């Protein structure tokens, strides 16, 4: 059999209770947040909200309790994240830290790094930026030029990272950089844990097509890093960054980015006739129902200690297509006179965010290459 398997997950009573608990909390916490703000999805930033989630035990869920985590599994986390995204909660502050930095530090960090940082991530008070892309290194990550040179006191970091979401609010960045020359294209890289309060770091805003500021350019100008800034093993950076990307690709954020528009569409449809476009609407719901089960299945495989790289790439590719189709379907389904100003604001926000869905976390082309490799074609 060529295709990967997606065993179905069944929900336990405890998981159903967890979902209800999160939902009740959000109904209360977000009561005053208008739909146009919820439509920011995981780009909405609210440090107080993140801290409140941390207090509830809904961050760092899969981390061991010894590091301030909650010893829950990937399916439990999937449930919480689904509820957060479906409600349009402002999760950006803790997002990167909870999704990928914490599991990366748990896997590769020193005991001291774990003790210092993980409890703060679980508390929702320590935020991270991703240090991968550069101006001349997008999909071709192995071409990065940022360099950490070894000195007697640690490392000196030089280079410029780009598209760093909330780099201007981050306490740390995990920077993928060159630490030595290598004949192997994927050799000589390392990841360093950079404290953003160090001297020599310049964070400049980069606005997106809607004129909003979440991206940044982060320049490291002779930043002196202590020796314990190294994350994992020197020279193992490539393997580590690939495993970091696997965390980045496996969650419900890969199909729920435009979910708030679906709810808004249904709200407005209640006051208007669905007309002849019900097929579009029904097909959209069918796709969503299947994507949810596919994504849950990937979480289930993570729980069993598997590394479902191929399955995750498949969900992300289908998920991004779905998220991008939602505004197009909404255009066909809702008549012009049924839209109110709140709907229009949500629609615009999602329309303008949609191009990023198939770029961030690996472009569609990169994902299809990963799928082809998983199928044994490369």
């Amino acid at each position, binding site marked *: 059999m060529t295709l990967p398997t997606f065993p179905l997950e069944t929900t336990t009573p405890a998981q159903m209770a967890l979902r209800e608990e999160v939902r009740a909390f959000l109904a209360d916490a977000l009561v005053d947040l208008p739909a146009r703000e919820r439509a920011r999805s995981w780009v909405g930033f609210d440090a107080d909200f993140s801290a409140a989630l941390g207090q509830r035990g809904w961050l760092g869920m899969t981390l061991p309790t010894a590091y301030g985590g909650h010893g829950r599994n990937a399916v439990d986390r999937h449930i919480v994240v689904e509820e957060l995204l479906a409600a349009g909660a402002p999760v950006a502050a803790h997002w990167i830290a909870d999704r990928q930095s914490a599991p990366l530090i748990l896997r590769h960090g020193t005991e001291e790094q774990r003790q210092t940082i993980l409890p703060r991530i679980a508390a929702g008070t320590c935020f991270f930026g991703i240090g991968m892309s550069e101006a001349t290194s997008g999909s071709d990550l192995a071409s990065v030029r940022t360099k950490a040179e070894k000195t007697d006191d640690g490392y000196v970091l030089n280079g410029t990272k780009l598209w760093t979401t909330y780099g201007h609010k981050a306490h740390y960045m995990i920077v993928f950089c060159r630490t030595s020359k290598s004949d192997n294209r994927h050799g000589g890289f390392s990841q360093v844990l950079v404290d953003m309060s160090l001297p020599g770091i310049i964070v400049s805003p980069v606005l997106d097509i809607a004129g909003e500021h979440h991206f940044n350019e982060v320049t490291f100008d002779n930043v002196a890093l202590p020796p314990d800034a190294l994350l994992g093993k020197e020279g193992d950076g490539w393997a580590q960054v690939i495993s970091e990307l696997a965390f980045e690709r496996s969650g419900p954020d890969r199909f729920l980015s435009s979910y708030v528009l679906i709810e808004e569409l249904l*709200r407005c449809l209640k006051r208007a006739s669905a007309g002849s476009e019900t097929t579009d609407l029904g097909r959209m719901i*069918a796709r969503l129902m299947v994507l949810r089960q596919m994504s849950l299945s990937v979480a289930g495989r993570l729980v069993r200690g598997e590394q479902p790289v191929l399955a995750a790439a498949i969900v992300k590719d289908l998920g991004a297509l779905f998220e991008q189709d939602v505004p197009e379907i909404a255009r066909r389904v809702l008549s012009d006179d049924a839209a109110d100003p709140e709907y229009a604001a949500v629609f615009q926000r999602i329309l303008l965010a949609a191009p990023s869905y198939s770029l961030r976390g690996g472009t569609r082309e990169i994902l*299809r290459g990963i799928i082809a490799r998983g199928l044994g074609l490369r």
Partner: protein
Amino acid sequence: MDDSTYSMVIESAEKLFSDRSGKNFDPALWAAVEEAGFPLALLSEDQGGYGMSAREAFAPVRVAAAHGVALPLGETLLANWVLGEAGLDPIEGPAALVWDGKAAVPFGRFLKTVVQLCETDAGLAVSVLHPRAEDWQPALNYAGEARDTLTVDAQAKPDAHIACAPVVLRAAMAMLRAVQIAGTTDAVADMCMSYCNEREQFGRPLSKHQAVQHQLAVLATHGCAATVAADMAVAAFDAALDQSEPFVLSAAAAKVRTAEAATAVSSISHQVHGAIGFSEEYPLHRLTCRLWSWRDEDGSEAHWAKHLADWAGSLHDGGHLWPALTACDLREAT
């Protein structure tokens, strides 16, 4: 989940159905299928069956579809299930559910029994009929499988009634097509991968051309979605009578999603095969013609999408779809 029964069923179905592709009903193969007990799998032991879960019971249907086998196996499974729910004895020989009215029945002319369903004020009436060959008006689907229309009227006095909304049985029949589509997309994927690994153009296998790799990647995403869609509906079938809404919604979504997958998979598979895949001698069309038939049979995407859209439009829980979606999640048996 205990997978031992499931694996055993898959293994014996693989043995039975390998290299038995065809478009005509095969009586000898049917006898072997009955010998294996597949048509009674959903019935409890008290009812003369094997008390299997829907996942186990429909596994052979999937395997049969993957091998391009022409048999009313899933139809007979469902007919026996309805008879069991109606308190009637299971039947021998190939059978199918038939709605009162003019609907195309899979392999009609080859059936020994049809279980006719009729909506009445007293509930869903069930009648066991044994039509003669001349009672059928013959027709074929795109794959050349018999799809005949029964020309006899509903029985005046039904044999029994069952307490079940008609949409549940219509959804069950749609689920059956979804299972068949999922099995077939898997087989098409296999065929495409081997062909593209072997066939060389421009001095290298087709599978080494990036444009082809990306087409195959897209095919794989649809194949996986079809499998999950069908699995989701089948898993919900176990509680189809007690929790009929999640089942009907899952089956509706499964039919819509597998039909979409059927469209994409058949299109890409023919594209990457080139002219040979368009020939009578090459086996691809046995699979793709079935995909084109099944995506329309027992309700097209438009039919089941309307069901989902109407349901979403009818939700009044503050207009929120989300809680209604998560309410369809499979629950651990208690």
